[in-house]
């Protein structure tokens, strides 16, 4: 096997890595945002429950959670390892994203909510038009960090047999006896994915930045 087809084989796992990330990251964002809003604005019971969710999820190694969730998810509905793994990863990241969004909501000054209510907005309108637009801007830098973690953690679905980058690197390293080359190629692809993602989010953050005098 020549080097080109070797690299091509590993790189063809990239589609899986990207797909897993593109499912896990947004679903984690939706769940995380809803839970963060519930935690900040909900009643005492909801506050406790969402805090408990976050504490447990973040207190376990992602790979352990992934296995547990995988068996729950694939046990209750008939899903391929790819879908079950992606959804499970989404649940893992939702807790981290919840904390990121919660932190951002809390750092939007409490006065903003009061000012919104003072002109007659209800709570939902205030959240939608005043709190969330400011939250998004504050959340991008820490969220960029979490996006990088999810890209890297997508390699965990390897353990479920999804043929993503790491899985392919492992297979080809075994068949060619070239582990260094195989894993270096995998590392390079992960690095490029993370680098491009972080740079794009940096650019987005700059574009959304609210103009102010120095």
């Amino acid at each position, binding site marked *: 096997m020549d080097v080109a087809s070797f690299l091509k084989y590993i790189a063809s796992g990239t589609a899986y890595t990207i797909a897993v990330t593109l499912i896990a990251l947004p679903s984690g964002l939706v769940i995380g945002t809803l839970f963060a809003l519930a935690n900040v604005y909900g009643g005492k019971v909801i506050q406790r429950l969402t805090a408990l969710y976050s504490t447990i999820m973040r207190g376990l190694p992602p790979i352990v959670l992934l296995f547990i969730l995988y068996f729950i998810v694939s046990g209750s509905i008939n899903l391929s390892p790819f879908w079950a793994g992606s959804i499970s990863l989404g649940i893992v990241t939702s807790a981290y994203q919840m904390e990121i969004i919660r932190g951002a909501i809390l750092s939007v000054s409490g006065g903003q909510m009061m000012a919104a*209510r003072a002109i007659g907005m209800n709570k939902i309108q205030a959240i939608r038009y*005043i709190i969330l637009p*400011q939250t998004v801007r504050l959340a991008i830098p820490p969220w960029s960090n979490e996006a990088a973690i999810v890209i890297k953690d997508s390699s965990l679905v390897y353990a479920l047999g999804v043929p993503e980058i790491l899985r392919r690197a492992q297979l080809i390293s075994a068949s060619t006896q070239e582990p260094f080359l195989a894993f270096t190629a995998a590392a390079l692809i992960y690095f490029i994915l993370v680098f491009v993602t972080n740079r794009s989010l940096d650019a987005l953050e700059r574009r959304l930045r609210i*103009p102010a005098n120095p």
Partner: protein
Amino acid sequence: MSKPILTIKNLTKKYGENVVFHDINLSVNEGDTIVIIGPSGTGKSTLLRCINLLTRSDAGEIWLDDKEITCKECDEDKVRQHIGMVFQNFLLFNHLTALENVRLGLTRVKHMNPADAQLKAMQELERVGLLDRAGHYPGQLSGGQQQRVAIARALAMDPRVMLFDEPTSALDPELIGEVLEVMRKLALEGMTMLVVTHEMGFAREVADRIVFLEKGSVVEEGSPNDLFYHPKNERTREFLWKITELYGKKDTEQGNG
């Protein structure tokens, strides 16, 4: 004879054991400017927040235009549309331009069509002399300009009453004048206003009535002339003396400038 637009009856507010104020009575006539003065921690801000229902009072009633607004079934969001509030620290929406700040309530709360809302927002900015800053974000405006936009934002809702909570306390001395100027103009135009302030020059000149609040109750109220020159209560006299000592110098400087 003007009729009361806002009536506060036996209003009481507690935070746990801490009684912030107790049995407050106050009646505000249409077009009047009432200035509320008093030491810090006395419950002035809490009183204003109770009036526009940002905080729930524990007992007593508030009436706006012959309707009780403190009833259980009252629609708080509806009531707040009719009561404008200006805060000490401006609280403009940071992610919106001056124009968008003023326009948002019109489109989202009053459901005005976009073109009308735009026009009205521009008129309100013009009213506070900031039409040329319409596209600026709060972070690009001086404190005085931010406060004037905040006033325009409240005015845009066509409130029956405007509440001001120490609107100039967070401003550098040289920026206080422009905000007081806008408020003076509003008072002349007949806006009903409740103003918490330490600006005694403004109080003397613009107030129809001054209310001295201390430790959660009204110690004395009357015309500026009564309170400044013939205070009935020793505490009123002491407080006014102290506050004039503190802020008086600035006052006269502005008067000259």
